[in-house]
């Protein structure tokens, strides 16, 4: 049975169910012309900000990074110039083009309020939006969706993957989607399972959300084509994860663009990527990190291309749980650190800027004598972004989205217009 047939079933099923369970969640947010889109990408594992955005003009940088320091100036292996002080890693060609086109803001020496060095607590806090790990079981993005004007009972958010990451968990209706590698169910079986779940609070909602996401995906012809191409004959190639990374980006970006292009689609998409925990043999202009950055950069380029005109209404935020040690460790890598970089890229972004209060890299300037010191609270960026891109009222931002964040004033003017 084709995806389209499943969608037809949905309409029937919604009618049959009298609207009680399925109907309210089956419609995505109504499209308004030029409505803004937000994509949040979580880089799990702690991205090395000093490698992604090398401060090549800082006198202490070459000393700390030794032969892994990136040289100034473009050309073979040199950092791509931004503002004469900072450069971009040479693998980040698309981001560099975006900077030139004034569609990229780089934030440096930025950190969440987290000051320890556990990935897992760091990610928890990055996503839960409070100053404490495990303080709540919901994410700031979901709480923002709850506060978005006119967003009642509509799936405004989609996670690209089987499950929803913490940042988007909560009571606002969201869904998750990943390409199916098995045949879709016939409508009779699906109807029976819907009945079977009728009195199960969790499963009935999840099933309805899944069907809603499938319906939107089916509307996107190219997404359907992609699903047809997805090969279920080849199981995972875990030992070739680095090569496989490009394929995963292609799949996720394609799906994200498919959803965001839709008139009736979700406004917000989130996905995550792993592999940034570069303790050993990190590489410089080439090597392990360069490979990952290159895949990420190519994924973003593909997202822009596939979004078409929607790119102009889009802001893509890239964040990571913390940074890495300023100096290279004994195994040509970097250990867990504190401040790092964040990126905001998209047609809606008032870019072409590096926003930072640079603390320097001298021994006294380093946080606890080892890490880039944080001078910008990530929540300042998140608040400014949510206020401008999703029109989340500032009272809500202060109260429910980012509790206990008075010290982090929203950064204004991150977006055009």
């Amino acid at each position: 049975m084709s995806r389209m047939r499943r969608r037809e079933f949905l309409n029937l099923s919604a009618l049959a169910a009298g609207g009680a369970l399925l109907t309210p969640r089956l419609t995505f947010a109504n499209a308004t012309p030029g409505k803004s889109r937000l994509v949040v990408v979580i880089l799990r594992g702690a991205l090395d900000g000093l490698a992604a955005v090398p401060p090549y003009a800082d006198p202490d940088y070459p000393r700390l990074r030794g032969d892994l320091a990136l040289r100034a100036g473009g050309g073979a292996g040199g950092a791509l110039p931004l503002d004469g002080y900072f450069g971009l890693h040479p693998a980040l060609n698309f981001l560099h083009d975006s900077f030139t086109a004034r569609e990229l803001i780089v934030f440096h020496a930025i950190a969440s309020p987290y000051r320890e060095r556990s990935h897992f607590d760091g990610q928890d806090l990055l996503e839960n939006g409070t100053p404490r790990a495990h303080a709540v079981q919901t994410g700031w993005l979901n709480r923002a969706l709850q506060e978005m004007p006119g967003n009642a009972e509509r799936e405004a958010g989609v996670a690209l993957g089987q499950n929803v990451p913490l940042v988007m968990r909560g009571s606002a209706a969201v869904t998750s989607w990943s390409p199916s590698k098995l045949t879709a169910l016939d409508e009779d079986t699906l109807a029976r399972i819907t009945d079977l779940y009728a009195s199960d609070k969790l499963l009935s909602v999840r099933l309805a959300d899944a069907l809603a996401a499938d319906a939107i995906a089916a509307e996107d012809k190219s997404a359907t084509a992609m699903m047809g191409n997805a090969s279920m004959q080849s199981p995972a190639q875990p030992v070739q994860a680095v090569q496989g990374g490009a394929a995963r980006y292609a799949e996720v970006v394609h799906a994200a663009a498919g959803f965001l292009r839709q008139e009736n689609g979700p406004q917000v998409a989130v996905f995550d990527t792993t592999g940034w925990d570069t303790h050993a043999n990190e590489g410089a202009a080439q090597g392990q990190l360069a490979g990952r950055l290159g895949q990420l950069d190519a994924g973003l380029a593909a997202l822009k291309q596939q979004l078409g005109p929607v790119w102009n209404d889009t802001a893509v935020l890239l964040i990571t749980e913390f940074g890495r040690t300023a100096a290279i460790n004994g195994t040509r890598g970097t250990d867990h650190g504190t401040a790092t970089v964040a990126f905001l890229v998209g047609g809606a972004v008032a870019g072409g800027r590096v926003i930072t209060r640079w603390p320097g890299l001298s021994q006294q300037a380093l946080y606890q004598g080892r890490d880039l010191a944080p001078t910008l609270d990530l929540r300042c960026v998140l608040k400014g972004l949510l206020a401008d891109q999703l029109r989340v009222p500032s009272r809500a931002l202060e109260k429910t989205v980012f509790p206990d964040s008075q010290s982090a004033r929203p950064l204004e003017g991150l977006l055009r217009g």
Partner: protein
Amino acid sequence: MLQPLNPAIAANRFGLGARPRELAVIGGDGRDWLRAQLTTAPLLADAALRSSADILAQGLVLQRQIQAARRNGALANVTASDAATAAELQKLPQYLRPIYVSEVTARFAEAVSSERPLAERLVQFWSNHFAVSVDKQYLAGLAGSLEREAIRPHVFGSFNDMLLSVETHPAMLLYLDNQQSVGPHSEVALRGQRRGGLRRIGINENLAREILELHTLGVGGGYTQADVTTFAQVITGWSIGGAGGRPAGAEDGKFEFRADVHEPGAKVVLGTRYPDAGFGQGVTVLRDLAHHRSTAHFIATKLTRHFIADEPPAPVVERLARVFMQTGGDLPSVYRALIDSREAWQQPLAKYKTPVDYIISGYRGLGLPVDAGRAPLAPFELLGQRTWQPGSPAGWPDRSADWDGASALMKRIEWADAVGQRLGNRRDAQQLAPDLLGANLTDTTRSAIAHAATASQAVTLLLSAPEFMRR
């Protein structure tokens, strides 16, 4: 108290899902059936599986050949050497991949056929506690051997023994980069300085941090950054023969303590001073960590979350932690306290199954064959939980919200449908449902299965039922 008489809780929560007639075998009191499983170590007897040292030694030979080919290639013309290098680089993955497939198949087959499913669940629990991920080089070949060599022998032993086995296993040393970590005042470092070597020599704190955070005390367990750094110095020299590009000092692929990279001197970790005793210094720190109050609490919390509820009831955690402390980390004593906890038997179906739970219970319940011809990796791949590939040393998460996504549910239903189609009328779901789910079977599910249009649809409904999604 009636609840302990519910054999379905024993089979589905503590076990890996009932096989046909398993509930009858369990009989009256599920606790007896579980306690009886806490006997000999659940070793995996499979002659085809090789030792980690053997796997690694052959890999190192291959790696040296690859390196030699790259050096030679670099001298020849560039284009030709690129192609040659690419082909050479594929040799290691091509060598490791079949090892991964046989390890996964053997583990999966054991879980599906085991008559001691609690033992297999515990193996998986500990394997996930000491997680490695096969997306790092060599781990595809070694993750299975870590579980077989360092976890299985100690599942019914002491935590301290398991901890030491794991932290000295080549898989863990490689995964968390310790084989390259060098003490800044070690002989090797000093020699390097005298020669004026440019290469920075020093420690890598990855393994030390994760031992404290993930394997023993837990985050917030009372250690500082200084403890991490000092502990990393303590375990410098914990390495592998033949690894790290240095001449082999011991047998290739086996754990090797390298005194010449060990950071000399006494060290203070968590307020205790440890005199330098070479390898023994780290062993003593590990022993103290294994008996630490924070470790007892951390392990008790994880076990209670895994077996009882996402939000572990505090009285159970306290009870388990107390037993852990009193017995010096005797694991069977801790399991017995868990089995004897009233709370474990009160709420049926409190845990949402992980994809692995779901797949294994489906295979057990329906008696599906695990044979190499059936591509045993596929279901784990499809449902989003590839064996030994959690992607981080924290392992797979253990709460409902991590697994109950909309798309994840649809994948399970589609898989259930595929299984139903494959079986056709070769299974009778109407008969199986009460046999597998016992008292957990609801009237709604019973009736849906009874009214299914076909035998294969009945199987799909059984596998999709709310009470089959949970344990």
